[in-house]
């Protein structure tokens, strides 16, 4: 399927929204306005957006601790997300989840996850629901290179294969599990791991939206047509540390500056669509300005929003008790 102008504009807007959201969370966290642990997705935008552009309302995703980008790519409201990250009552999860548990099941977003490797089994379940109820839906598990070594992830490869589930496993390999290089921590290769479980594995340049989009389209079609699970090994970079406050002493000197210069997914997208005369620079600049305003508003509204009160502490534990 060829991407329409509208598709390209949406892809760019989503990627820009993620970047602006994350850059701004980085700044506001540094100023002390945001509580808790925050893990930023800046630099990885092409993966979340390139995958989720292939999904629709029937489809589910499960995310990781680095989940803001997946939320935005799956259609969650950035303002409600920002309020959640600020811990406010009107946040996407009433201020009870925060950055690591941000979710919107009504958008098919089954949650960021504070447990590395927590998502893949859940996604097998979402795919089982789709298969049992014949919804035609597909389920996508995003997992990092760190999460790729969890038993839950490897067990899920096997379960998805033997139950022939409509699942796509997306291993987002940003080179580091916290401080530890994936080159050291991952035995074998992601692609060969997939193949060992009897499913196709594809290596993808995660800086290139179009590469991710094409690979994901094939994987989603494969799942949707009943052929079962497959895996994408998406190689990309994160612009910030494991979490906010990480001094990144384990990275090479100048590493981040260089990848921001040479391998920035947004710059690459802009260059490609401009050179191919698919979109005009002015349109992209306009989106940049609109997104900046949206995130400015999101931050201002989040700062002003009321926190939950004592009456909220005991609610939402059970449906009935």
């Amino acid at each position: 399927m060829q991407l329409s102008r509208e598709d390209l504009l949406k892809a760019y807007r989503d990627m820009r929204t993620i970047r602006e959201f994350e850059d701004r969370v980085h700044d506001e966290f540094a100023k002390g306005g945001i509580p808790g642990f925050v893990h930023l997705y800046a630099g990885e935008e092409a993966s979340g957006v390139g995958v989720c552009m292939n999904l629709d309302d029937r489809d589910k995703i499960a995310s990781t601790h680095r989940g803001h980008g997946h939320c935005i790519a799956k259609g969650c409201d950035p303002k409600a997300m920002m309020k959640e990250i600020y811990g406010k009552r009107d946040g996407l999860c009433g201020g009870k989840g925060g950055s690591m548990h941000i979710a919107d099941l009504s958008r098919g977003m089954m949650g960021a996850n504070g447990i590395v490797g927590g998502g893949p089994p859940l996604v097998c379940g979402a795919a089982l629901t789709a298969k049992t109820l014949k919804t035609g839906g597909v389920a996508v598990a995003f997992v990092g290179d760190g999460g790729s070594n969890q038993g839950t992830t490897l067990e899920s490869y096997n379960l998805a294969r033997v139950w022939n589930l409509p699942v796509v496993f997306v291993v987002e390999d940003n080179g580091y599990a916290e401080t530890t290089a994936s080159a050291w921590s991952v035995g074998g290769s992601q692609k060969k791991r997939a193949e060992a479980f009897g499913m196709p594995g594809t290596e993808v340049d995660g800086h290139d939206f179009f590469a991710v989009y094409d690979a994901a389209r094939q994987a989603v079609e494969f799942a949707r047509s009943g052929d079962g699970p497959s895996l994408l090994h998406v190689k990309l970079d994160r612009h910030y540390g494991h979490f906010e406050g990480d001094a990144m002493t384990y990275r090479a000197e100048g590493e981040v500056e260089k990848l921001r210069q040479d391998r920035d997914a947004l710059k690459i997208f802009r260059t490609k669509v401009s050179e191919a005369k698919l979109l005009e620079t002015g349109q992209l600049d306009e989106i940049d300005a609109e997104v900046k305003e949206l995130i400015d508003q999101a931050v201002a509204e989040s700062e002003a929003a009321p926190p939950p009160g004592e009456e909220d502490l005991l609610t939402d534990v059970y449906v009935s008790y």
Partner: protein
Amino acid sequence: MSNKSFRQAINEALAQEMRRDPAVIVMGEDNAGGLGAPGEDDAWGGVLGVTKGLMPEFGRERVLDTPISESAFIGAAVGAAATGLRPVAELMFVDFMGVCFDQIFNQAGKFKYMFGGKAVTPLVVRTMFGAGFRAASQHSQCLYPIFTHIPGLKVVIPSSPYEAKGLMIQAIRDDDPVIFLEHKVMYDDEEEVPDEPYTIPFGEANLTREGGDVTIVAFGRMVQFSNQVADKLEKEGISCTVVDPRTTSPLDTDTILECVADTGRLVVVDEANPRCNMATDISALVAQEAFGALKAPIKMVTPPHTPVPFSPQLEDLYIPTPEKIEAAVRAVAGA
């Protein structure tokens, strides 16, 4: 109404709910059995036959055999529950929770709260527990206090075939994640059980005996032992109330406190290891809320703080017995 075993009662609950609601599915290791193997299909129906016959009626799409891979399939049950199915997943022995507990306590138990009330996870995890099978340390534990500790989970311990059927149907229809614990020694116990579906609400204790001298609170198989003790002592003029809370979460604290207020004497019988178990929990409750009503110190009857031993002689020493319960009741009654 007919005579049914604990095993048949649970099987009938599952079958009736699967007929009623197409969203109910069953999954677990060898829940049918024989998948991909050259011999008999539906070979086991679960390791102790509880799900036997479900696959022939409902097909392999709704009775799913799994690899021995609890993290993946318990997690899949959680994910399926959060997206529209009502899975009943079998964790063969509760001792195996160690390899899949994250999916139960960090995922299923917390979805509703973490997601601001918007998640519904109608999951049942059926699991076998308890000592007495000579199954040794890794196949004999109770562990229900650990589930009870987790907000978001409901924890059910049926004490008879009648209780098992009604509580299982309730568990399947309940919209919260439920851990349903089946004592492995009780599968062949029989009693009259209605043929039609019925539910027993959670959080409402059952008084299996009523008497004025001593309150005995007990769970699962220990309810049976406590009933035996109550019947024996009744003849000697010590009359006991036996409280079966049925569920440890929610816990019917009102009934426990009312019974203690009536009798002034409490024995708690718990097959779980003694530190931070239901016996300590209920003792603390009563000490805090009904201290003034107590005419004697509370007695707890539990196993020792050891793993479950293998040797039959040692296992018999480990498990709380009617004799130990009787001694505790006599002690508080005489105090």
